[in-house]
């Protein structure tokens, strides 16, 4: 299936990607903080329209991994290739351009608390190298809020919203530039099971609608089950195991079993 339809990306002219083409390739990624080695020779591949869940204990380096992909952290060595570009080699402008194709959902939502929901959504649109007309901005804001079912919150402040609503607004903000990749940092952590399920469904709905590839950081096994095409277990800074949820579920490996118990 072709992914660069008008809906998928309305403002770039990159070559069209097909389902199954690699969009993220990580090779021998190493990252440490002082003496604390977080990632050592970590490698993985994410394909177009694929949902990869990275599973691991707290402090295993899952968030560090996706922060290296988006360029918030610079790796010590190794390659982080996104759409054919090695992220650590990019200058600021090139990184900004690449980031228009990558969404990042923060664990804490990271909504700008001094801005309304509308201003939160408009912020990234107003600051891109592509100029949007006011009509286009309004249309994109409305569409993003419709996608998460929260059009009535447009003039509310983030503090007036519940945790689940904040997460959905954060997802709408992430989606507003129609990225081709979304990096989710523990999207369901701290939410009740019903809201967590709603977020999982939203992730799947948006993936289908916009043909997005995703990396989902999680240790919520329901989220892993609901959203994953492929699961990677990150252990001691390395890819310990890779497989589908069903394969992991049937594994007798002690390191895997502890996530199911």
């Amino acid at each position, binding site marked *: 299936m072709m992914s660069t339809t008008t809906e998928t990306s309305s403002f770039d002219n990159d070559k069209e990607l097909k389902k199954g083409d690699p969009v993220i390739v990580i090779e021998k990624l190493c990252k440490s903080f002082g003496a604390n080695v977080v990632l050592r020779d970590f490698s993985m591949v994410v394909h177009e329209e694929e949902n990869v869940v990275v599973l691991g204990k707290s402090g295993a380096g899952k968030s560090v991994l996706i922060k290296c992909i988006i360029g918030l952290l610079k790796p010590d060595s190794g390659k982080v290739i996104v759409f054919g570009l090695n992220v650590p080699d990019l200058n600021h402008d090139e990184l900004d351009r690449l980031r228009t194709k990558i969404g990042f959902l923060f664990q804490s939502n990271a909504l700008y608390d001094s801005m309304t929901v509308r201003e939160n959504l408009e912020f*990234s649109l107003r*600051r891109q190298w592509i100029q949007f007309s006011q009509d286009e901005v309004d249309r994109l804001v409305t569409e993003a809020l419709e996608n998460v079912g929260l059009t009535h919150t447009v003039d509310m402040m983030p503090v007036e919203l519940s945790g689940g609503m904040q997460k959905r607004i954060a997802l709408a903000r992430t989606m507003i530039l129609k990225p081709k990749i979304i990096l989710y940092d523990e999207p369901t952590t701290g939410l009740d099971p019903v809201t967590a399920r709603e977020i999982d469904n939203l992730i799947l709905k948006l993936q289908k609608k916009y043909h997005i590839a995703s990396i989902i950081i999680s240790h919520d096994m329901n989220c892993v089950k609901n959203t994953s095409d492929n699961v990677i277990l990150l252990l001691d800074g390395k890819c310990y195991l890779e497989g589908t949820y069903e394969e992991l579920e049937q594994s007798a490996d002690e390191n895997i079993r502890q996530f199911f118990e």
Partner: protein
Amino acid sequence: MELPEGARDFFDETGKIARFAGRFFTTGLKPRFELKELFNQCFIIGYKSLPLIGLTGFIMGLVLTMQLRPSLVEYGVESQLPAMVGIAIVREIGPVIIALIFAGKIGSSIGAELGSMKVTEQIDAMEVSGTNPFKYLVATRVAAATLMLPILTVLGDAISLFGAYIGVNIRSVTSFNLFYMQIFQNLSYGDLLPAVIKTFFFGFAIGLIGSYKGYNSSMGTRGVGSSANTAVVLSSVMIFIIDLLAVQITDLLGLNY
């Protein structure tokens, strides 16, 4: 010989602040400019500080006049009261006190705001959305503080002199025109200009230190409180250091006579 840990930390922090200042000039002053946010910050930092600056300036002028009067009466030079108060306020007390008040209000506010944005990942969110947070958050606040403090100082000085006029008239009767004539006959541009110029540096230091502390905040809410607190303390110390340097420079230029 190895430096003690405290001294090493001091030089380390000084170096980091200097690098942060360098980043302001290399990154913050490059197009594209965040003009809308700059005007917004000028409104918040400048306009919203005016009532506080006005009130403290008024009280400062009034109290200074009332405190000076008995000494001048004792030496029989009470008529010199407006000139003395005017020079004291315009050359030294006005800029320094107003800068200290400004540091307390704005330095802490910038430190806490950016610190809280840092620990809640809002700064990271800004960066991944294609915005340079240094330009949007830091450069605009530093520039607004640098531009607004001199204006606030001039206004604060004027209000302070009005307070001094009230102070003079509590115990005697002096006309408004005579009071101001006595002040301005004894003031020159050599008094006014260095005093205003140094407030640009005060404002820059306050904005920069507040932003530096907030932008590099860590350790959650405790770190935010600490950022706000150290921003005020460091800014206040910097105001006195800059003031000391300014006095030395104006002395060398012969403007203190």
